[in-house]
């Protein structure tokens, strides 16, 4: 037997066994929640990308969500007997891992899911519908899912790409004072998410009669010098609408600076307008750049102050990730909706609540805006988007400054398009 041990160790098997044992011991040491006896946890599942191609978003978005839930529980918003557990799984923007994460959420009893990523939203839509569990796809995923009658369990709050592009066009045309219609360039990441706004944008171009040219940036989107030169020098665009992801927005701003295109003629959809993108390009240089948002930006909001106060009460420094307020606040916004829906469902039905209850509760959310931090959402069975609200911010003096109120553009066109998608 002595030889057996030696021989196996030589083959490395022993080491593997040791590692496995170590892992088992660690797993056994797991601390059991002390107050678990009388407090029941309600689980929200959250997909996150902290390690994949969009890790410029994930760490901030997900930290925001965690902190909101901590505050929510601390305030005992569900009463003494219940609390929310936010279960985060990082999928690294990998679809099989995203599907596995969903199964793990379900195993843990999650009643609602915060999805992350367009391909993940697409791949989980059939499962969510079948399992009667709601999933939010804030700003990404399938724009046609705004129709709750066709996609009963997907909530693309607060604005799908169709609503975003319509608002961007409205903002541009409102700003435009020239005698002729402006020449608009649309620069986009060449993947399904990047092309999603195209049909609506083309409809608007023919309806409003402005000139439109599309410029595709192939993945991974870190090289777009030719496209931007083309926009500035050949096409001589009056306005640019940008729809880029990950590291691409920062690169695009740098290129606009390099070719001398005026930054206050560029407006980005929601995933290309965070502090980190401007950090890449430099705040002075990027002065004037516009971006769409569907949650308040900056730290001057009651809810963000409350979170900071929570940290102060615990004697901790505020989290570093709070500084990227665009994504941090967006995480707060998304999870606040989930928490609110669970709160309503619990009040109405009592424990235990089902995914269906939470969905119905989400559809009943009205006038819940955390003092202007969130858009004036009005969710309903027909409108899972809640109105398609966005707010435009502009880079001014080293910060993102409001450049509009909550707005939505061409609602009729967008709704008509959603209805057509439903019929097809």
């Amino acid at each position: 037997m002595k030889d057996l041990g030696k021989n196996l160790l030589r083959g490395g098997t022993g080491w593997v066994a040791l590692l496995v044992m170590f892992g088992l011991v660690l797993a056994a040491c797991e601390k059991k929640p002390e107050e678990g006896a009388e407090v029941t946890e309600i689980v929200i599942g959250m997909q996150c990308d902290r390690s994949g191609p969009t890790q410029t978003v994930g760490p901030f978005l997900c930290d925001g969500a965690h902190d909101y839930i901590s505050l929510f529980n601390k305030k005992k918003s569900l009463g003494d007997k219940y609390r929310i557990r936010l279960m985060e799984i990082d999928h690294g923007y990998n679809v099989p891992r995203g599907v596995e994460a969903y199964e793990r959420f379900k195993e843990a009893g999650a009643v609602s899911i915060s999805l992350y990523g367009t391909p993940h939203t697409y791949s989980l839509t059939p499962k969510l519908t079948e399992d009667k569990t709601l999933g939010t796809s804030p700003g990404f995923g399938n724009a046609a899912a705004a129709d709750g009658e066709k996609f009963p369990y997907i909530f693309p709050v607060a604005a799908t790409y169709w609503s975003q592009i319509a608002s961007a066009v409205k903002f541009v045309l409102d700003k435009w004072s020239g005698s002729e219609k402006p020449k608009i360039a649309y620069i986009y990441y060449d993947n399904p998410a990047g092309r999603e706004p195209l049909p609506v944008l083309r409809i608007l171009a023919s309806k409003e009669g402005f000139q439109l040219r599309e410029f595709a940036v192939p993945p991974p989107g870190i090289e777009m010098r030719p496209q931007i030169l083309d926009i500035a020098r050949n096409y001589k665009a009056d306005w640019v609408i940008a729809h880029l992801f990950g590291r691409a927005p920062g690169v695009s701003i740098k290129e606009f600076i390099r070719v001398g295109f005026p930054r206050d003629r560029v407006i980005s959809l929601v995933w290309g307008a965070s502090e980190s993108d401007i950090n890449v390009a430099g705040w002075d240089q990027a002065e004037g750049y516009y971006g769409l948002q569907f949650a308040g930006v900056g730290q001057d909001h009651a809810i963000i102050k409350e979170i900071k106060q929570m940290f102060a009460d615990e004697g901790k420094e505020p989290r570093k990730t709070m500084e990227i307020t665009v994504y941090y606040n967006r995480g707060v916004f998304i999870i606040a909706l989930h928490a609110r829906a669970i709160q309503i469902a619990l009040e109405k039905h009592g424990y235990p609540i089902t995914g269906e209850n939470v969905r119905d509760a989400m559809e009943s959310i009205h006038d819940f805006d955390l003092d202007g931090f969130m858009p004036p959402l009005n969710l309903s069975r027909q409108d899972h988007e809640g109105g398609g609200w966005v707010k435009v911010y502009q880079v001014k003096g080293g910060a993102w400054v409001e450049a509009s109120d909550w707005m939505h553009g061409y609602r009729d066109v967008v709704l008509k398009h959603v209805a057509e998608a439903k019929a097809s």
Partner: protein
Amino acid sequence: MLNRETATFKRSYAEDMALYPLPLQRVTIAVIILVAFVAFPFVASVYMLGLANLIGIAALGAIGLNILVGSTGQISIGHGAFMSVGAYTAAVLSSRYGVPWWGAILGGGSMSALVGTFFGIPSLRIKGLYLAISTLAAQLIIEWVLNHVTWISGGVGAVIYVDKPSVFGLALKSNLAMYYFIYVFLAIGVVFALNILRTHIGRAFIAVRDRDVAAEIIGINIFRTKLTSFAISSFYAGVTGVLYTYYYGMANYEAFNLTISIQFLAMVIIGGLGSVLGSILGAIFITLLPIVLDTVLGSVGRMFMDAAAVASISTSLQLMLFGGLIMFFLVVEPDGLSKLWRNVKDYFRVWPFPYL
């Protein structure tokens, strides 16, 4: 003894050619089949079944890739794209033309085999790293086509929803039903792969891998052999893509990107080149490792920190450990997990007389 060749006499050609000549092997296989098809599905939770489904699909793809990479020595970084060809073919066939699941599986596999064979043509002139680059091109070209040709992808979203397969009028909706669906194909794939390596075709693959000039001199048609290998391997990839499509309920090329191609290569290399068991072990390893790490790191981390801090540290640590463990296993046994298993078997084969 059960596990010895001694006293196992082969009395007929059939016995001589049996896949598993030893009684112990036959017993083991019977037990595995019983566990996989009877015991496991009844004790496993829905989550475990979902995990098993992902592993099963990945194992099928890895077995296919291993025929190409491990047995024939031709590298392919385009396997993710070949899977997407299968996936879209099946999705188009079933959602637009109402083809049943068996037609979609055959169609997806065949179309992928066709495309794979086409992109295998450069392998006749180039080898090794050069071939890797050429198959990388296949990945990019196929992705571009699926992304832009809306006739295939059905619109800007490049997503086609498909209904779950229905067998004898029964829609396979639950994870349990999909489990049987997937594992039947995995079983067929395993048996086919084990056997093909014992035929003249499989021997030709190995000859080409070991030295193609020598193989040509002893009369092997290199052209045909390499392309056959590409065809078989991408047929597997196509079926894998179809199974993914049915499991997710939709086809989307972003689920088959370059990362997935490389992940499959990693499965094959960690599992053991040229070994069917290795492909399965590799698929299990690559699929489970991130989950195990996530669970262990998460539960340890929660003892010290709040959830957000744990998440941000554990995801970084996970990536490092993932890479580290892959290196560890390859250093311990460069021939992969299947070789580790063989070492154990070899030890017990002569135990308790290691000097034999």
